[in-house]
Structures are given as structure tokens and as C-alpha cells.
């Protein structure tokens, strides 16, 4: 259960990009974060993962404080992010990418998990010897998700997973998200396609200028006129 309270953070000392955010994932399996460009969505996600140069406030995972930890420790405690633009290791093979995802695990565990991910993404199995940098965007997105899943995370953060992908691949990704939650993973999703993001999520938060201005069950937000106007282009 990820809980964030009074979170501030940014890139330059004294300039807050995220300014006093409160988010409580509770039982929500998938939570969507909405906001216009530059609202601080990505910065917020990076802040949770410990990647912002400065941050204050509290980040709690099942009662454990994460806000003072280094990014790699946060990752080991089960918060994994698939960053915008995938962030695969281009010169490593698919297998090696997955192994890095399971960094620190013993060889047998690594083998079972890898098999599981290959079952989930048969495409990756076909390309397991391939250098990641040579693969298509969709394949890289799958690889990035599989790599994050290698560690059996408790929270999976997806930043713009559909960006730059062909519609058919986007469909596959969104089909996948509910299935992931069945394995006990909570998903935190930032998606430019707000409609889709809301469809797939249970709860949603709207961020403006680094502050949460609106939050609630996704279905309600989908009906909210403000959301419809500013994000869905409907009136």
C-alpha cells in the first residue's frame, strides 16, 4: 500500500516542481495520474523512486518509509518504474536485460522468473538473444515491463507506456495491465491518453502545477465536466 503525504521535490534547490502532493493508493489496484504537460507528473513518479535531486515529505510502502532511501534501495523494496521512453539497456540482450531486472536474485529463482516472463511475452522469448537496442518500440516496452516484473514488485509505476507505439501494441499493453494486478501488483499509471488511463484504473488523481487538484474513483472523474473539458476535449 503506497502512501505519499506532503510530498515536495524538484531539480534545483528551492524550486519545487512537485509541491505538497498527497496520494494514498490504498486498495486501488490501478491508479491513474492525470495532468497537462509540465504539471509535474513524471517528476512526482521520479520523486517516489528517489530520482529527484531534492525531495521532502513522506513516502510509505506498507508502513515502511522510503523517502530517505537511495533509488536502488527503493527498487529493492519493491517499487519499480518503467520510465518514459522505456529505458532498456540497448547493448544488452533481452535475456541480460531481464537478468538485470532480477539483480541480486539467485540463479534458480532468476531462471523461474525468466520463464514466467517469457510465458507472459512469447515475443521476447523469440528474441531472447537479440540486442535490445535493435528491437521495435513495442518489443522494448514489453521488455521494460518484463524487466520490472522480474523482481516481483509490489508497486509498478508506468510512465507513458503507450508513447510512440502503434495502436495495436497499445491495445496489448492496456490488456496487460489488469492481468498484472492479479499477481498482487499495484500499478501507478501516467498516461497521455486520459480516456484509456481512466478506463483501466480504479482511482485517479489530477495534478496541476505540482499539486493534486482533484481525485476520486476513475469512473466519477470520467464524468466530471472539468476533466472532460481539459483532458478529453469534450464538453
Amino acid at each position: 500500500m503506497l502512501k505519499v503525504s506532503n510530498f515536495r521535490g524538484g531539480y534545483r534547490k528551492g524550486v519545487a516542481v512537485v509541491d505538497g502532493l498527497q496520494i494514498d493508493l490504498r486498495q486501488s489496484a490501478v491508479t491513474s495520474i492525470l495532468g497537462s504537460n509540465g504539471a509535474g507528473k513524471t517528476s512526482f513518479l521520479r520523486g517516489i523512486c528517489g530520482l529527484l535531486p531534492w525531495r521532502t515529505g513522506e513516502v510509505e510502502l506498507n508502513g515502511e518509509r522510503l523517502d530517505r532511501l537511495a533509488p536502488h534501495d527503493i527498487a529493492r523494496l519493491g517499487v519499480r518504474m518503467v520510465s518514459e521512453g522505456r529505458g532498456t539497456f540497448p547493448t544488452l540482450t533481452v535475456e541480460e536485460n531481464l537478468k538485470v531486472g532480477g539483480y541480486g536474485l539467485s540463479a534458480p529463482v532468476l531462471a523461474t522468473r525468466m520463464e514466467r516472463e517469457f510465458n507472459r511475452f512469447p515475443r521476447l522469448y523469440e528474441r531472447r538473444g537479440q540486442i535490445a537496442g535493435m528491437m521495435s518500440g513495442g518489443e522494448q516496452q514489453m521488455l521494460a515491463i518484463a524487466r520490472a516484473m522480474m523482481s516481483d514488485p509490489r508497486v509498478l509505476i508506468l510512465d507513458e507506456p503507450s508513447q510512440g507505439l502503434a495502436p495495436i501494441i497499445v491495445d496489448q499493453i492496456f490488456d496487460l495491465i489488469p492481468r498484472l494486478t492479479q499477481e498482487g501488483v499495484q500499478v501507478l499509471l501516467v498516461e497521455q491518453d486520459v480516456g484509456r488511463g481512466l478506463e483501466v484504473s480504479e482511482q485517479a488523481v489530477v495534478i496541476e502545477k505540482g499539486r493534486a487538484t482533484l481525485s476520486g474513483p476513475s469512473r466519477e472523474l470520467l464524468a466530471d465536466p472539468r476533466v472532460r473539458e481539459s483532458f478529453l476535449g469534450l464538453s
Partner: protein
Amino acid sequence: MEDVLVYGLLRGGIYALAAFGFSLVLGVIGIVNFAHGALVVFGGLLTQYLAVKFGVPYAAAMIGGALGTGLLGAVIQRLFVARTFTLEPLMVLVQTFGIATVVTELGTLGWGSEERMLRLKTGLPPGFMLGDTFVPSFDLVVFAVSLVSAAVLFVVLGRTEFGRAIRACRDNRESAQLSGINLGRTFEKTMFLSGTWAGLAGAMFVTLSPVAPYMHFSWTVDSFLVITIGGLGSMLGALVGGLVFGVLSFGASFYAPTIAPAITFGVLLVFLVFRPQGLLGAGPAIRK
């Protein structure tokens, strides 16, 4: 002609050995380590010191010298480079230049400024004829050790989790961190590896030719040349670059000794302008 080729290749083995660490650090941490040559010299002198002062057998002294140098590298990373490597690369260049000066001066204070050499009694015949070329057997041993240790490095980088972590950090720092890899520790290990191989190069070289603290800068420049020819940040490139550079510099100082530096640096310039990725360059792996 064959002489030049053979001797050049033999020398190239050591150049490659010295350049591996330089290339690794450049690729992974993204810095040019001006103290690299000082590490090579330090490794050579440490080996010589262990062997002569304590009568340690050469193989052990060599390993001790290499690991000691690796440790020095890791300490440099932890205390100094870790604080600056995210800044402009120029800053680290100046910083490591300062570190090179300090290491060299401390080495001079401890060991003196005189050239030292480690003479081994191997019991091998002095050499054998390869066609018309006389190949000193000890040179060949050193060359073989260079290749074997290069192979070890390839295995470490290519097949182990440690190596994967290093390569992951090289490819994408942030994703590596998000996968639970401790960036700081990995960089320290990278520097350790780099120092170890630099020390190994020094440990080999001190058995062939005298070594003294003041010689550090030419090792740094030579490593530069090797990886520019071979390709920045690529291990295989460093090996190939080392061998090519060995032949090139040997040929230049054989056929035109007085303008040899101009020839080698001229070739470097040609590479930089027309083929900046080198012979086997990784290209995109280099950030800046």
C-alpha cells in the same frame, strides 16, 4: 617489415592491457581519467617493490600489485570522482590531473624518482626464430598473459552479474538504479577493475623496461590514442586499438624516429575527423 609487425604486436598487447581500464571508465562512468597512467606506473612499482623488498614470487607480486592498484582506483573513485562525475567532464579531467600529480608525488616520496625494473629468471631460452624475426620468449609470455587477462576481463564483463551491472550502468544509469543497482558501488567496482588491469599492465611492463613515477603521462596519452583508434568505450576496440597502435608507433619510431610523435598523433587526428567512432566504436554508449 615482419620485424616491425611482430614487435609492434607484442608491444600492443601491453598497450591494450593498459587501455582496457581507461576505456571501461570512460564508457561506464563517462569520465576521462587523467590519473590512469599514474595507476599503470603505480602498479609496476608496487609489483617491483613487493618482489624485491619482500621476496614475493613474481606471480604473487603481480597479482598483489594489480589488486593494490585496483584498490587505489576504487579509493580515488569513492573519495573524489564520485563527487564530481556528474558535472562537466572537463571538471573531472582537471580533478584527475590533480590526482595524478598527487599519486606521482607520493610515489616519488615513497619509492624515489629513479627508474626501476624487475628482472626475472624464467629459465626459458632467450627466444626463437619466427621466419626471419627473432622473438624473445619472455615478450611472448607477457603477450600471452595480456591476451589471457583480456579474456578474463571479457568473461567478467560479459558473463557475470557484476559485469552485467556495469554494462547496465553504462547503457542507462537511471534504469540501472531503478533495477536495484547501486550506482556508487558499481562505479567503485568499475574503477577497481580499471585499476586492476592498469596495475597488471604496469606489472608486466616493469619486467621489460624501467619504470619511474614521472613516466605516468605518456601512459595516459598512449591509452587515449589506443581507444581513439579502437573506438571509445569498447573493450574489443581497446584490444584491436592496442595492437594497431603498437604496430603504428613501432613502425613510426622505426622508419622515422625523429617525427614519430607527429605521425602517431597525425593518425589520431585523421581518426578523430573522419572516423570518430574508431575501428570498432560503440558510438552511442558515450554520453559526452
